């Protein structure tokens, strides 16, 4: 296991320059492009030049860009992402407050996409070139081509407004929104800890539509990978051997083929998390979900530089960590991989 440990450390060390580069790119783009955060913060019109200037000095925007950059970097290293221009609170604090909501949504979406994607992908592979295969392939391609926000809105129109089965938006409904006490920020977990089953049911109901929206949008990628890798594995000699031994087809597919077919599927997991976070922006906007992604969109509208930079770095770090975990899992599933 020493090999894995060394690999993890190596990867973590490599993550630092990557996040650093991304941070630099975003920092420069924000500074070079037109758009003044101070006048946006003060509401734009009818503010005297002196007032603008004094705020600029106070917030440090009057300093040369390299100086601003250095002071920002030294803060980031100490875990200080600055204060939000909108609310005045530390950015890192606001991010941590909203992070659990995004994770809860992301996990839901991931589960939906795995179940739908892997099941349909394997079914398509074992029925290659039959009607079911063609139908599933069309479904996968269609899921690629579907605008996520549109899917979310359609769900809202039919399941929430027309049929009234599920809530339209938010994480909690009615009185619960005021009475529910959150401990970890993960509402599902909180409800279970407090044994509050009515709240749990309500939270679950609120998760269904956003989770499905995010999940279905990812099903295409997952499903196509599953189909392709299953097809490849089913062609292998050891599968022929298993069949020749007289094993049932079910045992061959689920027992022998699936484990190897899963390897490439897990590899795209890390990549998927990036897509997942991108999808979360739109899902959170449509469903008024109080997560990081919707926070970022609002920060952009207000030209809240510290919040934008903070969110970007936070998301980048998060994705790097996920990628690392995926790679380590990879070595556990596939014993041939050694680091």
């Amino acid at each position, binding site marked *: 296991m020493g090999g894995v440990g060394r690999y993890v450390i190596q990867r973590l060390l490599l993550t630092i*320059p*990557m*996040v650093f*580069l*991304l941070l630099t*790119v*975003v920092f420069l*783009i*924000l500074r070079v*492009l*037109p*758009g003044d955060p101070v006048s946006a913060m003060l509401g734009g019109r009818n503010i005297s030049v002196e007032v603008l200037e004094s705020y600029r000095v106070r917030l440090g925007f009057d300093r040369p860009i390299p100086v601003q950059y250095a002071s920002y970097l030294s803060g980031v290293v100490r875990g200080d992402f600055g204060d939000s221009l909108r609310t005045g609170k530390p950015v890192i604090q606001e991010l941590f407050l909203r992070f659990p909501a995004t994770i809860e949504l992301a996990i839901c979406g991931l589960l939906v996409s795995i179940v739908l994607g892997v099941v349909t992908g394997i079914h398509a*592979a*074992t029925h*290659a*070139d039959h009607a079911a*295969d063609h139908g599933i392939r069309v479904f996968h*391609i*269609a899921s*690629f*081509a*579907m*605008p*996520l*926000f*549109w899917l979310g*809105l*359609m769900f*809202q*129109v*039919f399941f929430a*407004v*027309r049929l009234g089965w599920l809530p*339209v938006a938010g994480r909690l409904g009615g009185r619960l929104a005021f009475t529910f006490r959150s401990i970890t920020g993960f509402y599902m977990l909180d409800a279970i800890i407090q044994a509050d089953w009515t709240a749990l049911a309500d939270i679950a109901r609120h998760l269904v539509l956003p989770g499905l929206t995010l999940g279905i949008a990812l099903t295409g990628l997952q499903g196509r990978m599953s189909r392709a890798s299953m*097809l490849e594995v*089913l*062609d292998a000699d050891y599968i022929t051997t298993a069949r020749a031994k007289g094993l049932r087809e079910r045992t061959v597919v689920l027992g022998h083929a699936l484990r190897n077919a899963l390897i490439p599927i897990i590899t795209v997991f*890390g990549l998927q998390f*990036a*897509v*997942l*976070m*991108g*999808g979360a*922006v*739109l899902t959170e*906007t*449509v469903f008024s979900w109080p997560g990081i*992604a919707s926070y*970022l*969109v609002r920060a*952009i*509208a207000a030209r809240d530089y510290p919040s*934008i930079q903070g969110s*970007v770095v936070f*998301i*980048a770090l998060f*994705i*790097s960590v996920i*990628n690392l975990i995926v790679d380590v899992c990879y070595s556990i599933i596939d014993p041939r991989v050694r680091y």
Partner: protein
Amino acid sequence: MDGRAIRRSMLARLLDWIIRKISHGRSELRRQTILKIGLSIVILFVVMTFLATQFPALNGYHPTLYRDGARLEGPTSSHWMGTDQLQRDVFSRILGGGKASLIVAFSAVALSVFLGSVLGWISGFTGGVLDRVLSLTMDAIYSFPSMILAIVLVAMFGAGLMPMIWAVGFVYIPTYFRVTRAEVLQVRETMYIEAVRAIGAGNTRIILRHIAPNTVNAIMAVSSFNLADAILTVAALSFLGFGLPPPAPDWGFDIQNGQKYLQSGAWWLITFPGVMIIMLSLGFGLIGEGISDLVNPKRKRKRV
């Protein structure tokens, strides 16, 4: 009947011509159903959008000036896709609503193919520190959610067509960078490049004559998928309010507008623009599928 037959054969001939170009005349590849469907959809949409831009009142109603319909009325025989809150005809807005998507998608992908390839060639060829820094930067951009990056960029550049082209184009640069760089690294070490070099060919000539052609196939397949993705990204940006300024018809923006009337059950405001986005994106996706099958015959499914 006759007119229809001729029109159909013209489309069929056009498709055959395009596929011949793509497949370098390998005739057995001309029976690509998926590719043909995809190409037909895209051509249809381009023609439709062009016509709707030239003659706005294509179906008898002007997308922005006509305001005499009923307010928020569902589909009827005179307004096939209903009317919106400003008493405009939804169908007329659908016809021309893909203009921004098409312009931005094509320009952005062209931009990223160009920049990504050039950077990939330079990086792969020079190697050393430059290659490392470029690769790392590209990896950082690539691993970051493209949708979020596009939103951040377009918000900074400002709303409108050019900002969207730059934002969406920037996001795809790493894809082409990787494709071309990998190709350069592979080809650089081959015997024939050594031979070409021995004859006295310069770097530029080697890149343009010997490396670039090798990457064309991969780039074509990838760029079709990127076009499909770009259509969705543009729609999302317009949906978030970073697209064309109203009242110009635009699918993404019209969906955002329809969202306000969702609670009153006005499903037609959202449904139809969304279906158009799906169709166009699907068209590009199918082209990508078709080309991938063409250039990589191993991908073609085997009977199990």
